């Protein structure tokens, strides 16, 4: 009886592990190149829409490219 329980537990762990591994394989990779030449790659668990990608690029530009900014003032 004890052997059956141990085998069942091991099988359960194997199934859960396999499911998690399978889920990880569904990650999507995205690369961003900023105007100051920073190459930034991220992985996300689902496909991103265009708006999110542009927002993300906006964030990266603000984070990495501030020293290269030129002061522009609209008259």
């Amino acid at each position, binding site marked *: 009886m004890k052997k059956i329980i141990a085998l069942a537990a091991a099988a359960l762990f194997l199934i859960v592990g396999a499911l998690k591994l399978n889920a990880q394989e569904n990650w999507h990779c995205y690369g961003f190149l900023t105007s100051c030449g920073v190459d930034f790659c*991220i992985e996300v668990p689902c496909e*991103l829409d*265009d708006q999110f990608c542009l927002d*993300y690029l906006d964030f*990266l530009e*603000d*984070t990495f490219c501030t020293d290269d*900014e030129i002061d522009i003032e609209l008259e």
Partner: protein
Amino acid sequence: MNVVSRFFVLSLWVLLIIPTAANSQPATAAQSSIQCGYHFTRKDAPDKAPRKYLNMRLDYTDGVSMFYDLFTYERDSLWVLAFDENGKTKNQKEYDKILSLPRPRLGDITITNFKKTEITQIYYQGPITVRATSEMSVPDWELSDESCTIEGFNCKKATADYLGRNWTVWYTEDVPLPAGPWMLWGAPGLIVSAHDSEDIFSFRLIWTDQLDNNGRIAFIDSHYPIKSIRKNGGSSHYVLSLKEAEQMCTRLRTDAAYFMEMTDARTSSELLDKMQNNMKYIPLIPDAYWKGK
């Protein structure tokens, strides 16, 4: 020249002069709408050179004001044209216009409703936006007799401890509106210039004019919803209290791992370190202000 001709010539001169005279008058108390141009500078770290936002605007109309970056407003306007409701590009030309907008641009916006005595703050951190509305607290301005002229306006000085910082402002009763940049308000006139005692932040009025478009405030107010939205693979929008919003945004701007977590993204430890090294930010309302509140 006979009488009729003289009368005609005189009338012509009067017609030419009146429009010119009207256009040359500065914004006055009688106007219920005004728009102003400001420069805003802020330091991301005490030892760094300040970041300059040279296209800030203050729109005031019908008891409501909005302080925003002109290029952020243009971005938001183009957003509606460029993307559909699922975040997919529907107009490549408008999308390209967004990419070509100049930087830096301040993504944060302040809407002050003097009639409802409430302030709405909108924060933009890439794919995460936050909206917070709070009752307005009146700065306890200590008025001084000191005066000077700034951009042609007769200004007087006032100081106050407000939202965790000691502010010095110059206001003008030539424009008797209680408005000012960001959340600075409640002086006897329009706030023309302001800086904190640590010289981290400064605002300066550059010009005033008649409001050319009284629809911007309503557009921005509706563009950032009053309910939280979370989309898988899409940008997120949170509606929080002012304290929660300020603390969340400070963390998003200083903690790379937190930003990655909130955007459901992961990256290499090398890139994460690189991001963290570049994330420098000092909030207008210091963290210490919120302790015990």
